[in-house]
């Protein structure tokens, strides 16, 4: 499978196989006008299989979203066709408006203008809880 290399933008690499689409959705990549490639189940010596996303534009990436969906990924920054930076993404401590609280008793269910904020309460088990009602994400 041939996918063109990009000139300016990002290559999100080492995505756990199967999580690429979720990342694509949460990053809102469907709304972009530029070329975006999502490659699923690529063979990887290290991971067996992985997903890759290529974005051919220097957009403002929400690294918290990436860290939440798949903290092991690598984000490669491409400028003028060259790799200029390689970033390892970790789990963020706080998520703001990345996911919504599903608890119908939470104040966020009735006050529409409130930010949906989650805090990482257990980094080992990767558990996020709503700051208002403490419901698990």
């Amino acid at each position, binding site marked *: 499978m041939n996918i063109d290399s990009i000139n300016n933008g990002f290559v999100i690499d080492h995505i756990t196989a199967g999580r690429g689409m979720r990342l694509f959705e949460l990053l809102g990549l469907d709304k972009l006008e530029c070329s975006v490639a999502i490659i699923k189940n690529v063979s990887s010596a290290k991971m067996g299989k992985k997903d890759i996303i290529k974005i051919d534009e220097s957009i403002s990436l929400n690294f918290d979203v990436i860290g939440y969906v798949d903290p092991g990924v690598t984000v490669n920054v491409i400028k003028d066709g060259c790799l200029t930076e390689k970033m390892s993404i970790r789990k963020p401590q706080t998520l703001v408006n990345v996911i919504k609280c599903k608890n119908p008793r939470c*104040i966020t269910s009735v*006050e529409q203008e409130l930010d949906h904020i989650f805090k990482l309460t257990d980094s080992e088990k990767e558990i996020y809880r*709503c700051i*208002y009602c403490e419901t698990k994400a």
Partner: protein
Amino acid sequence: MRSLIDILDFSVEELDSLISVANDIIANPQKYSEKCKGKKLATLFFEPSTRTRLSFEAAMLELGGSVLGFSEAASSSAAKGESIADTAKTVSCYADIIAMRHPKEGAPLVAANNASIPVINAGDGGHNHPTQTLADLLTIYREKGGFNNLTIGFCGDLKFGRTVHSLIAAMARYTGIKIVLISPEELKLPSYVKKDILEKNGIPYSQTTSLEEAMPQLDILYMTRVQRERFFNEEDYLRLKDSYILDTRKLVNAKKDLCIMHPLPRVNEISVEIDKDSRACYFKQVLNGKYMRMALILKLLQEAAE
């Protein structure tokens, strides 16, 4: 601005200090009768409550302050669609401290994030009720002389019972605590409370469906009401509401110095014949609640002035 949203907002030392102030208020009420002169407490109660609201109001009045507010959402601007944030900002212009009850979980935190005065969570849905925990702690302290080396049984609705979750969280910070969880299968303590509080703090606990079986080992028995408003389904409520009723027969094997507690209101889970038993402490809890709220109002107003 310091507020009280969750009982864990306060350190063990701060709780000890509140208990010590409350004990001093009990011993010397006159000394505190004008401590809040000229100060106003706003009681913003978006759902009905007799005990908690009156307790806050009595607390402020006994400190020489005054109170204003509303006792149901229908008589507030919330009925017109005003946000919690706007209500908090508005009330900050009129009062010196807020006590808020709201049916939605997290509403007092939203108020605290927007108010310019201290906010006290007076109960947010099934989530937190820290001032009830303050009342519980003072009761345990006065009845047992301290908090260490106690076996505490929690009985009834341990799933939705916010007072249970808060008291477990508070007690988990002391040493030698053992917890016995007594409930029907449907109302067991949520696993996150067991994992995040009990197991994390190395607190030994056991679970049983039998109140009689658990009774002999208990120093404290904390009864709870199976609350209608916490159920989505009326049938489930009717099926479970009478699961655990405490009567003299069940107390036969209890310790002589058992302390029976209940956050009230009770429906029928403690038989009225128990009220005469010297081990019944639930009405003392009500009184202790007022003293702890007095100590809390004093602390938060003092810190706001600094």
